[in-house]
């Protein structure tokens, strides 16, 4: 598991800071293009605010459409990050080094994107977002803490604040490296951001303890966030398919599956875009592939249980919902696409080491997994609300409108844009972590072979 090459600190600085100090040419072409797309989506949102939610496909009885699907999807992606980073840090997994910051960033930006959907897009009246917070003293009307829709913002706010601070704390030593390699205004900015970091044993000790302590504090938040998101559904006892007691762990493991797959996507893109072949190596994809096998199996177990519990109750509406999800078009086709792309194709291919070490294949499979996981959320949200009720005027279908599709597609562009903007200013791979890995590595003679080893850091 250690195929790294010998690298000097100077070389690590040069290669990992190249994007910050010089910047690839494609960055200047790609970023304005992405900004234009995001501005276009902002116009679509403006149009929606002006005309009202009637421009969406939402109508009785389906008031939660692809905006909420996308919210759950991005919350799921955000789980990869800190979970992966925290568990790998706590377990001193050596292969974590190039993956941690990418994973943490994915958490921050996807959580920001997720929060926009229920916060300023789906409600249609973003100027009333402050109703979620308990500060409107003049009216004396407060948020109802008994509602799952208030638990949700409190959990997301905690997770977003915590994971952002987690990234910032780990960035301080890297800011010092940039401070030492820049001049002029850039130097002043990095000097300010590095807070006067000098790299004393005390500062390093605190940095290491901080990583472990914040990881330990963020893990319970991570579990709670998607549990609470699942309760947005689970507390609505009148909607079939939404109130399974197993929803919380089922959502959490689904989030981890889609999130870790997204880390694979991001790492492959980082390797190709910045030519970081020395740092992001096939062994990392191999390790992530093995981890994904375990996560996917766990997810499939919960998925099967959730489905089986629904059928086992033998309640007419629940059974007819499952029949609709599986056998009625277009839901049946979407169901088959979801289960094959999220589970059967990936789990089969990940069994082979050759596949796990093939970065292009791992990249494509990770995209497949997330197509499947997006569809999974769609199949939870929409068919559940579509069920037929005694009064025919509440029978309805749902087709997403161009405004909804634009905003959902733009959310992917927005996350990419945020990562690219971050990459221009801050290093995407923690330099000190890579340097530490270089110093702590060793080789051990076992019989006639020399095997790579690593000293466990404390």
């Amino acid at each position, binding site marked *: 598991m250690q195929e790294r090459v010998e690298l*000097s*600190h*100077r070389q690590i*600085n040069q290669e990992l800071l190249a994007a910050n100090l010089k910047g690839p040419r494609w960055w200047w072409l790609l970023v304005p293009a992405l900004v234009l797309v995001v501005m276009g989506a902002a116009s679509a949102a403006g149009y929606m605010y002006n005309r009202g939610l009637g421009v969406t496909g939402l109508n009785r009885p389906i008031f939660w459409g692809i905006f909420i699907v996308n919210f759950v999807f991005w919350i799921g992606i955000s789980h990869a990050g800190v979970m992966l980073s925290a568990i790998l840090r706590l377990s001193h997994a050596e292969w974590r080094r190039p993956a941690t910051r990418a994973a943490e960033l994915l958490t921050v930006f996807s959580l920001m994107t997720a929060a926009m959907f229920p916060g300023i897009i789906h409600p249609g009246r973003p100027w009333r977002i402050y109703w979620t917070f*308990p500060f409107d003293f003049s009216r*004396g*009307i*407060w*948020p*109802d*803490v*008994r*509602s799952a829709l*208030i*638990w949700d913002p*409190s*959990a997301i*706010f*905690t997770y977003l*604040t*915590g994971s952002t*601070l987690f990234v*910032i*704390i780990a960035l*301080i030593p890297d800011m*010092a*490296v940039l401070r*030492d*390699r820049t001049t002029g205004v850039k130097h002043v900015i990095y000097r300010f951001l590095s*807070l*006067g*970091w*000098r*790299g*004393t*044993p*005390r*500062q*390093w*000790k*605190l*940095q*290491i*303890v*901080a990583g472990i*302590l*914040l990881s330990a*504090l*963020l893990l*319970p*938040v991570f579990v*709670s966030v998607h549990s*609470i998101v699942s309760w947005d559904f689970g507390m609505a006892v009148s909607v079939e398919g939404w109130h399974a007691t197993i929803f919380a762990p089922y959502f959490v493991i689904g989030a981890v599956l889609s999130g870790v797959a997204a880390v694979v996507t991001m790492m492959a893109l980082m390797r190709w875009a910045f030519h970081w072949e020395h740092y992001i190596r096939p062994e990392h994809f191999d390790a992530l592939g093995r981890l994904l096998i375990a996560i996917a199996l766990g997810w499939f177990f919960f998925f099967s249980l959730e489905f089986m519990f629904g059928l086992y109750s033998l309640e007419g509406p629940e059974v007819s919902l499952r029949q609709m999800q599986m056998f009625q078009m277009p839901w049946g086709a979407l169901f088959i696409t979801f289960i094959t792309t999220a589970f059967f194709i990936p789990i089969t291919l990940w069994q082979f080491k050759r596949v796990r070490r093939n970065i292009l294949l791992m990249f494509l499979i990770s995209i497949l997994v997330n197509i499947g996981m997006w569809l999974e959320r769609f199949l939870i949200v929409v068919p559940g609300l579509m069920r037929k009720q005694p009064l025919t005027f509440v029978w309805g279908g749902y087709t997403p409108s161009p405004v909804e599709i634009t905003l959902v597609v733009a959310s992917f562009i927005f996350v990419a844009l945020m990562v690219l903007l971050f990459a221009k200013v801050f290093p995407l791979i923690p330099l*000190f972590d890579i*340097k*530490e890995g270089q*110093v702590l590595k060793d080789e051990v003679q076992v019989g006639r072979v020399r095997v790579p080893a690593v000293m466990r*850091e*404390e």
Partner: protein
Amino acid sequence: MAKRSVLGLFKDADSAANGVDALKGLGISPMDYDILTGMPYPDGAFGEPHTQHKLFVFPLVGAICGLAVAILVTAGTQLSYPMVTGGKPILSVPAMAIISYEATLLGAILFTVLGIIFESRLPRMQLGLYDPRITEGYIGLAVSCDERLLGTTEEALKGAGAEEVKHN
């Protein structure tokens, strides 16, 4: 006697550890020197005393504050506008527990971050005697000594293998 700063730059950890030994030999207290590196080394790698800190107190205090604020806000807001919804009690413990859980952890995280910055002795307005090569793999040994010991300290650092020694 005025204090002066000396910085010795070492290429590897062994010679930096020799530098620390040389300073000890001169009777310089560990409070008067600092090792500057571009990456974390194991505690005591240079023969310096182990770092003591009280970081673990911060999350505990933060958690207590977060919990207190959460109970105050959830109970206070519901009691100030007591509207029954869904037949639930005004003070619904399971619902309050969820928000309190989040606020407790938020408090713990915020205080931990403050603790990290405080215990790391940051922010530091002046870098003092420093060299950018430290973030390139060199190990710096920054010493604060009496002016009369300046020459001896420089000699000691050079003798231990410092590639360059500078002072202010």
